[in-house]
């Protein structure tokens, strides 16, 4: 009877790998570190598979394991990588011909400048599509905390990336818009 349960578990685990990798790359900004992080998550999930409660959110459970591993082991010390340019090149070089590739690199560079808390909340809610409640559970914090982190992350990205877009509106309108915000 054990085998079919394990097969189901393994199938669900495999299905979650692309999302776990995307989350890991977004978090640590380095593909090799992210791959290590995902493999560690898979090992931990497998070792603790009997502790997963049937009927609860499997993907959220996996994401919780991954982010806890990241914050406890990976972020500090030996595995940390802070090469923002290398980051972009490493994870996005697989599709260099894709239109908008440079935008993507710019975007990743800006993302890397967010605080860990803000980045995590933004990715979980804005990219992965978790609800605020699910994200709060994954990050082990209050729902209101997640909401404010997401808002601050978005505002910071506007600061970091908004300039190019703002120019599209013409100098006069920008001046007026900026004026209206500061007055």
């Amino acid at each position, binding site marked *: 009877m054990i085998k079919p349960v394990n097969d189901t578990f393994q199938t669900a*685990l495999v299905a979650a790998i692309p999302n776990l*990798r995307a989350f890991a790359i*977004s978090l640590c900004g380095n593909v090799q570190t992210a*791959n290590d992080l995902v493999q560690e998550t*898979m090992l931990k999930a497998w070792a603790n598979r009997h502790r997963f409660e049937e009927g609860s959110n499997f993907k959220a459970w996996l994401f919780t394991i991954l982010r806890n591993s990241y914050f406890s082991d990976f972020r500090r010390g030996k595995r940390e990588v802070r090469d923002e340019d290398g980051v972009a090149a490493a994870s*996005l070089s697989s599709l260099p011909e894709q239109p908008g590739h440079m935008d993507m690199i710019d975007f990743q560079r800006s993302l890397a400048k967010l605080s860990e808390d803000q980045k995590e909340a933004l990715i979980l809610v*804005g990219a992965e599509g978790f609800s605020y409640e699910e994200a709060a559970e994954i990050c082990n914090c209050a729902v209101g905390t997640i909401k404010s982190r997401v808002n601050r992350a978005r505002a910071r*990205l*506007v600061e970091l990336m908004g300039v190019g877009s703002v120019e599209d509106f013409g100098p006069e309108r920008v001046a007026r818009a900026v*004026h209206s915000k500061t007055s």
Partner: protein
Amino acid sequence: MTASDADGLDDTAGVLLDERVQAQIGQQLTSFYRELVNQPIPQNFMDLLARLDRQEDGK
């Protein structure tokens, strides 16, 4: 007529600008993430799973 053409609507212009930038950033976030999700799974991940499976069989 756009909001910024009208006198006294500077606040509206600011909000519209912000919304447009926000929408653009949301779009970039989504396509950035989608590209990562669509990357092929490295082979050693599948090797790891096969190893776990064999361990289980060996018990």
